[in-house]
């Protein structure tokens, strides 16, 4: 058993629901008790979708358990088929139904419906939402995708054959973090490059569209957590290569353009490639070089999210904003190996966990000036009084803004600059706080003035808990250090003193320690 206050991912059937809800003309019959219907509200309330997810729940009750839950399941499939007339049906079990072992796949098969029925086996006690989404997408694509009608000539370069290169876009889903806006951004980018888009899946694709997946020259994988498995299969099956760069951040977007150009057989200096790379609306690089941004230099940032977004955030934080990555973690265990390797380049120990309490401890210990995380880390940061921006699922209604807010492409980079910088204290404001600590309106935990609601709750007071160790004067000086670095200063000083056997800590010790740790 695992003690869980908040979960980073839902159960795997939620992943399957995200795929089914993304697709068109697909219906999902889920063998489950009534309470599992809560999942509808994720789509209708958090994402504000206008239609219910295409899901029928069997909603068996205790009294059905002794009777015939299998017949109930078959009736539900039959009724759902009659009512919704989907082109394809997926069937499966939620955690409770998995225990009663009714075999949804076999039962649905026995009905001999005139449409494909894809059984999903999603072990609810081992796997989680993203795995479920990935597996469901893969199983559905396997059931639908056909090779291109005419065998493609040797490839690449498509562009020299006198036709536009053709790609699929794989990965965007319902309830995905900024998927709607990322997709628009990437479509525009591919348009600038002169690349035609075949199928976008799963978001908006019908089974008939999935059948055409094999026609493309290559696949663009936007979210490996969802589409990597499918892309691998398409590569084996149809010889379609896939992109490996996720275009989040300036550098990654440039690499993505180069990768896509190469897969399309476009010359690196082709006019369309040059135009795409120019990114006429890209502002992040100049904003980051602008002198007001110098205050960002080496600000401590703690990053946690799904593997893709966390790694992208780390790259942007270090290379494009000049922050110092002091913590980097993910709940995507499926990507643990790649994640570890990448984390090494930041010189931090990767945190791979889905234990919210552990993440909370690590953040508190790292004392970052900024947390980039999920809605869970937003809770933690709020409690610790640290600014936070959300970079990854799990998400909440605020993560579906009304305006276009991509994370991908050059506009995504612009949006990231705004979203991450906004919660931070501006440079001059920070200096004023440091200079005039004793101003009665700068109480010890003064928040950034532009964030009126942001009230730190857990900034420890600099109380002299152990008078033998701190001289009063030194302690008063400590209190003049802004709250967001005070804890660190205190611990460094105490460590410095302990190593040298100094007691009590005086003003001199404080400044000796400061000098010691500043190089």
């Amino acid at each position, binding site marked *: 058993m695992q003690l869980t206050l908040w979960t980073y991912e839902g159960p795997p059937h939620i992943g399957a629901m995200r795929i089914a809800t993304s697709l068109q003309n697909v219906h999902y019959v889920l063998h489950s008790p009534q309470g599992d219907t809560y999942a509808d509200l994720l789509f209708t309330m958090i994402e504000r979708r206008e239609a219910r997810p295409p899901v029928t729940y069997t909603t068996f009750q205790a009294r059905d358990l002794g009777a015939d839950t299998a017949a109930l399941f078959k009736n539900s499939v039959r009724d759902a088929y009659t009512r919704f007339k989907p082109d394809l049906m997926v069937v499966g079990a939620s955690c409770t139904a998995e*225990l009663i072992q009714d075999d949804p796949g076999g039962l649905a098969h026995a009905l001999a419906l005139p449409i494909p029925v894809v059984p999903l086996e999603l072990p609810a006690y081992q796997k989680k939402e993203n795995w479920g989404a990935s597996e469901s997408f893969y199983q559905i694509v396997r059931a639908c995708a056909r090779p291109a009608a005419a065998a493609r000539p040797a490839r690449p370069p498509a562009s020299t054959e006198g036709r536009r290169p053709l790609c699929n876009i794989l990965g965007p889903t319902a309830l995905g973090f900024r998927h709607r806006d990322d997709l628009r951004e990437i479509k525009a980018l591919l348009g600038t490059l002169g690349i035609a888009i075949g199928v976008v899946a799963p978001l908006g694709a019908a089974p008939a569209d999935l059948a055409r997946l094999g026609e493309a020259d290559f696949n663009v994988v936007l979210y490996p957590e969802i589409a990597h498995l499918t892309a691998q299969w398409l590569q084996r099956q149809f010889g379609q290569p896939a992109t490996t760069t996720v275009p989040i951040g300036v550098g990654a977007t440039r690499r993505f353009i180069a990768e896509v150009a190469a897969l399309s057989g476009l010359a690196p200096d082709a006019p369309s490639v040059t135009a795409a790379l120019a990114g006429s609306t890209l502002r992040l690089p100049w904003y980051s070089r602008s002198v007001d941004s110098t205050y960002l230099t080496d600000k401590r940032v703690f990053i946690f999210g799904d593997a893709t977004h966390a790694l992208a955030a780390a790259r942007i934080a270090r290379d494009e904003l000049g922050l110092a990555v002091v913590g980097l973690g993910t709940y995507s265990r499926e990507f643990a190996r790649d994640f570890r390797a990448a984390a090494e380049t930041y010189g931090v120990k990767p945190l791979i966990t889905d234990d919210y309490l552990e993440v909370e401890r690590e953040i508190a210990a790292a004392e970052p000036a900024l947390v980039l995380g999920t809605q869970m880390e937003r809770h933690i940061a709020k409690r610790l009084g640290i600014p936070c921006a959300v970079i990854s699922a799990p998400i909440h209604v605020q993560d579906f803004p009304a305006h276009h807010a991509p994370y991908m492409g050059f506009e995504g980079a612009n949006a990231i600059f705004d979203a991450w910088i906004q919660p931070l204290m501006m440079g001059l404001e920070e200096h004023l706080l440091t200079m005039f600590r004793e101003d009665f309106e700068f109480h010890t935990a003064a928040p950034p003035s532009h964030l009126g609601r942001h009230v730190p709750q857990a900034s420890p007071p600099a109380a002299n808990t152990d008078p033998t160790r701190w001289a009063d004067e030194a302690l008063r000086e400590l209190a003049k250090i802004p709250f967001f670095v005070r804890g660190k200063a205190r611990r460094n000083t105490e460590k410095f003193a302990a190593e040298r056997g100094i007691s009590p800590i005086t003003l001199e010790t404080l400044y000796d320690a400061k000098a010691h740790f500043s190089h």
Partner: protein
Amino acid sequence: MNHSPAPPPIGLAPDALPVLRERGQREVFCGLTSIVWLHRKIQDAFFLVVGSRTCAHLLQSAAGVMIFAEPRFATAIIEERDLAGLADANDELDRIVTRLLERRRDIRLLFLVGSCPSEVIKLDLGRAAARLSARFAPEVSVLHYSGSGIETTFTEGEDAALAALVPVLPREADDAAPSLMVVGALSEIVEDQLARLFAEIGIAPVHFMPARRAREMPPLGSKTRFILAQPFLAETARGLMARGAQPIAAPFPLGAEGTSLWLGAAAAAFGIAPAALSARLGASEARARAAMAPHRAILAGKHVFFFPDSQLEVPLARFLARELGMELIEVATPYLHRQHLAAELALLPPDVMLVEGQDVERQLDRCRAAKPDLVVCGLGLANPLEAEQLTTKWSIELLFTPIQGYDQAGDLAELFARPLRRRARLRI
């Protein structure tokens, strides 16, 4: 289960109101959801669900946006190794509870809450609770109940939790003076108002169950008279009666009329003359009616359609029909407890369409065909119905908002009027 297209069975309620019984797909929460308000109600209680990732996800999805402080609930997620017998479920539970109680030293009452998976694998939470209670006594007592979706619907989780508390309520002496127990989790402001009203009409002592703290739970004995403040507390009522308490039958305290009848029933049980009562309550009731008046102007004559959700549907329908002049198209409720609702059913218009249970697709068909002015439904259905141009009131709000008593009657009416006002107001 009846999934055949044959016409659904029509039964008769004791009071001769016809009831359509449906057994199809239900679009309702399970009992775990009650934890979202219960964990705030009892300030030193903690709810540990023993369940799956689904249960944890349900709780956080239902509660997520509403929880600003650290929640006093968590889930012990059953994993493959527990099912495969690689880990002893009881050892695991002990380890988790120990960790939890170390982290939250303010906790005095721990509920182990069963779920569908724990029920299906027959995890004996009763024994676990007894064992843990012995271990952590006297600081913490440990109780258990089931909030599983195979056994409980939404508010029945509160019923199960309160029913679990009944056996451990302190014993009241048999020669004690008669006391009144108000049963059901109410907001603090409502409790305080009701307490003042009871004092005014001369009923004392009055206890609220559950109390705000674990150590302050009310005493119970043969001199206890109890009155339900919520319609979904059948198990709790059964338990109270088994311990000798006397029930007071009444409609529920929603609206001016409902509150007067509810207080009146309590007063009658304590031998207070009706004339004395109306003299004391007349002003409060008039104030409630005045507060409802502007909303009545919006709601009167409008048609309302209830999807089954909280079991508050019947009392709410009575309130909307009688005090606000609304027309009832369909009143569906997950379960119709005829006994506890007898006084309510008697007040409904005789041609009302009552539905017990659900077949959500068929009900949606009926709802679309009826084109009601207002649909009361759960969160999963509200936006899709709005997108179809229907106006909705999401019902979960009725559990998180103070709605009982005279001084909330206007607020309660406003909750139903607001969606209509909003629709009329927007120019987009």
